[in-house]
């Protein structure tokens, strides 16, 4: 059997990779995808803990997080499409209309 900490380390690794993607990449779609990775890492954590303490709550929260991820992806991609239509770019650091 696998110790719970291994799940946590896996989740930690995925989360860190996601954070790295968010803070270093320029392409907004990849940034969005990295956020999905991070949410996913959280889910692993929740399910592992749920098993550890023997309750279904972790699963419920994981379902909520997946719902949230779906909403986020829909809105995020909507914004990206609207942005792409106006500025013809996918680069996050060129999204600076509000920068002053």
């Amino acid at each position: 059997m696998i110790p719970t900490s291994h799940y946590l380390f896996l989740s930690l690794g995925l989360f860190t990779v996601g954070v790295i993607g968010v803070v270093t990449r320029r392409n907004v779609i990849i940034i969005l995808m990295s956020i999905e990775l991070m949410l996913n890492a959280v889910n692993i954590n929740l399910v592992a803990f749920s098993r550890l303490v023997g309750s279904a709550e972790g699963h419920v929260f994981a379902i909520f997080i997946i719902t949230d991820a779906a909403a986020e992806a829909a809105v995020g991609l909507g914004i990206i499409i609207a942005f792409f239509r106006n500025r013809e770019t996918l680069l996050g650091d060129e999204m600076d209309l509000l920068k002053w």
Partner: protein
Amino acid sequence: MLDQIVFYFFAALAVISAVLVVTRRNIVQSAIFLITALLATAGIFLQLHAEFLFIVQVILYAGGIMVLFVFVIMLINLDVSLHQVQFNRQWWLGLVLALALGAQLTVAIAVGRSGLPLGEPAPATMLEPSTELVGKVLFSEYMLPFEIASILLLVAMIGAVVMAKKKV
């Protein structure tokens, strides 16, 4: 034995594809590796006996959200972004900070070992949340959050339509 093979296989697959997601130049390839990472996570859910979550992950994440991603990527010009610089100017700072965060979390897990039985496998006799149980908890204790989540989805749907619509 089988359990361990399954876990380490999926864990390695997930981490490797995650790394490839953030390093690939081609967005479509990134998306494919993200799908792989998500499916690997689904495998880990299965290994954790979270069957319902496994299928939710496959249907919603891999089958729904990622289709949306791939759809949008196909709509958007790819050739231009292939020849651009992929990492922003502060990438080194971001990398250092992200690694620092990772180190912090590692420490947190290490410290947490003393409080919770993290070092050993979860007791097998512990209840395995079945689909039925998840449903019961979701629709009794968490009824209100569930409804709020559905409103969130509705709002997101309207928002996405409004934003993606050409001219209002």
